[in-house]
């Protein structure tokens, strides 16, 4: 299928990321301009903009499946790229695209449906011989069932929403007394987020590493893997930074895991990009967790170590091109980190810290790629996720990449909002992290979540005193300004805890 135009049914940095490649491929790029974010950065990257009228702002266009299809039809757009989040893993979008003769940039409706149902995905994994975590083999829909299943599996167990994803609808239950409350909370969360309260119960693996394999396949059964990504640095199952490759994998373990990922992909007749997630325990046993059927937030680390453009490969394989890459063509070159700069207040338990970005400066470096959805002066709307920018830092080795990252972060400047940069610095200064000794319990065990330079608080106290003295001087000389505060201070006023 030869396509000429593409509608990006997404916003922020991923919309920009997709449009950059699509434009290079000669496709006409389309995006939505929403009333919620009318001046967003991503809009200026599109060739054509579809304006969403104010009156329809009750539902987000990015979640309005039929409206997206309608706009694509009216404007005769050939293809739709869903990005990540929103409708990216909704099989109905793929189905409706098929029905209307629009190319969906992603796998088939069946693949999304199969992998989106955790129980179905696990069944398939078992059928093709992948190791899985012991637990329920059918969805659990009542507390009685949950109690029985948890007892059979043995505590601690993990409650997982059948339709879950993105770290939502998951909870660890340590013993039977916790089960009732945890079960009810997780079901509620799952109903709110995914409109499906069914649960899976699995043995909880203590302190595993989270490692995922990127795969790429065409519609003709050819598939390759693009190695692994290490995503163990998480908080509440939300990834905070990722790297590729992983220090935890020996060559034989890497071969075993990537083989499993490809086996699953072939058994599912999967095509385009996909990610097979695994947990790796202390004894180097790995278990299939789930498969993500979209482009991932952390795809740039894979691009950095393989030199490939994943969005281009996604579009090509979706549109029916045969895969021209052989496995041996793909080699790991160097090391890459991705740091998620989120608008969150690390000192206040990562509470969202939305607002206006007054200043955002990153140094220019051959080792740095910045994928940002905002620039200085942009408003971070509270409506969406808190991702401000992704910093992808590379080096020949892991140690070199860490040094480059520290240099980049030292020069990075963001003001107006608080971000996760102090957390990233704390991680990069942690001896265990630097030595590669960490797992998913890393963030929970950190002594301090934000990095402080020596003398930093003293410097801050000096500034506070100086500003106070200047006010005193004004009072004494009777020339106090009318308000005494700048608009910027007023804006930040309610955000500081």
């Amino acid at each position, binding site marked *: 299928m030869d396509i000429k135009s593409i509608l990006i049914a997404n916003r922020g940095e991923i919309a920009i990321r997709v449009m950059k490649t699509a434009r290079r491929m000669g496709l006409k790029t389309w995006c939505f301009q929403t009333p919620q974010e009318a001046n967003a950065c991503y809009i200026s990257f599109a060739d054509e903009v579809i304006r969403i009228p104010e009156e329809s702002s009750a539902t987000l266009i990015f979640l309005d499946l039929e409206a997206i299809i309608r706009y694509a039809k009216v404007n005769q757009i050939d293809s739709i790229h869903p990005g990540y989040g929103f409708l990216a893993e909704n099989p109905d979008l793929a189905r409706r695209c098929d029905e209307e003769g629009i190319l969906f940039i992603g796998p088939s409706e069946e693949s999304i449906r199969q992998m989106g149902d955790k129980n179905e995905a696990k069944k398939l994994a078992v059928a093709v011989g992948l190791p899985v975590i012991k637990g329920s083999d059918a969805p659990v829909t009542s507390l009685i069932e949950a109690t029985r299943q948890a007892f059979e599996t043995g505590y601690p167990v993990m409650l997982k929403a059948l339709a879950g994803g993105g770290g939502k609808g998951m909870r660890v239950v340590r013993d039977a007394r916790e089960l009732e409350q945890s079960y009810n909370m997780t079901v509620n969360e799952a109903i709110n987020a995914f409109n499906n309260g069914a649960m899976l119960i699995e043995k909880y693996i203590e302190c595993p590493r989270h490692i995922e394999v990127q795969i790429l396949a065409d519609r003709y059964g050819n598939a390759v893997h693009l190695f692994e990504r290490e995503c163990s640095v998480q908080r509440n199952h939300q990834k905070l930074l990722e790297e590729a490759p992983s220090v935890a994998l020996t060559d034989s373990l890497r071969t075993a895991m990537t083989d499993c990922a490809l086996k699953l992909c072939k058994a599912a007749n999967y095509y385009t990009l996909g990610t097979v997630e695994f947990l790796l325990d202390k004894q180097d046993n790995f278990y299939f967790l789930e498969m993500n059927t979209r482009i991932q937030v952390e795809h740039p680390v894979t691009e950095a170590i393989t030199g490939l453009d994943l969005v281009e490969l996604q579009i090509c394989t979706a549109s029916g091109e045969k895969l021209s890459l052989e496995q041996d063509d793909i080699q790991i070159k160097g090391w890459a980190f991705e740091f998620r700069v989120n608008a969150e207040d690390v000192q206040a338990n990562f509470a969202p810290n939305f607002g206006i970005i007054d200043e955002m400066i990153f140094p220019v470096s051959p080792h740095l790629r910045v994928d940002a959805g905002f620039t200085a002066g942009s408003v971070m709307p509270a409506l969406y996720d808190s991702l401000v920018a992704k910093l992808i830092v590379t080096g020949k080795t892991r140690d070199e990449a860490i040094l480059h990252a520290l240099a980049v972060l030292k020069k990075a400047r963001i003001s107006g909002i608080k971000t996760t940069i102090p957390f990233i610095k704390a991680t990069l200064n942690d001896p265990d992290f630097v030595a590669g000794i960490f797992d998913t319990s890393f963030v929970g065990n950190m002594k301090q979540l934000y990095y402080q330079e020596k003398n930093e*608080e003293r410097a801050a106290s000096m500034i506070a005193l*100086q500003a106070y003295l200047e006010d005193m001087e004004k009072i*004494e000389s009777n020339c106090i300004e009318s308000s005494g505060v700048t608009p910027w201070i007023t804006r930040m006023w309610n955000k500081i805890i």
Partner: protein
Amino acid sequence: MAKDKRQKYRVSGIREFAFVTQTFSVRQTQRQQIEKTGQNVYRVELNNESFTGEIIQKKQNRCSVLINGNTYHFQIDREESARRKKAGGRKTEENKTYTLKAPMPGKICEIFVSKGLEVKEGEPILILEAMKMHNQILASENARVVTIHVKKNDNVLGDQLLIELERIK
């Protein structure tokens, strides 16, 4: 102008710092320098290390500073009054009531307590949903519920007063 010739100040945040000031300015030495570089922006040199910080909140003698992406909240007192406050502080420390504030903006999903109920330290008081995650808010000490200011499904702002409690021994 003559009033503030030379003063001693205590600036207390997480830690406490003492400074000598001279005519409305922190006394500068070779190892300690400060310069205003913009509206609310200052540059500090401390032992040959350079810091840039911004004033983000100022109210009477309280001041918050953003530096390297971290915020610090300070209370500024003259040396004498700081000492006086410390001495007097112990008597009023027996504050019986304390308040529960929203740690982040969100929606109240569930309230487990009612007025007059006694809660033990670590027991859940309510569930606050923020960014689609349910967060349990726990009692930080043994207490009795005095007033509940919110109800189920209320949307709350960060730092909003939720519940008042009374400590019990």
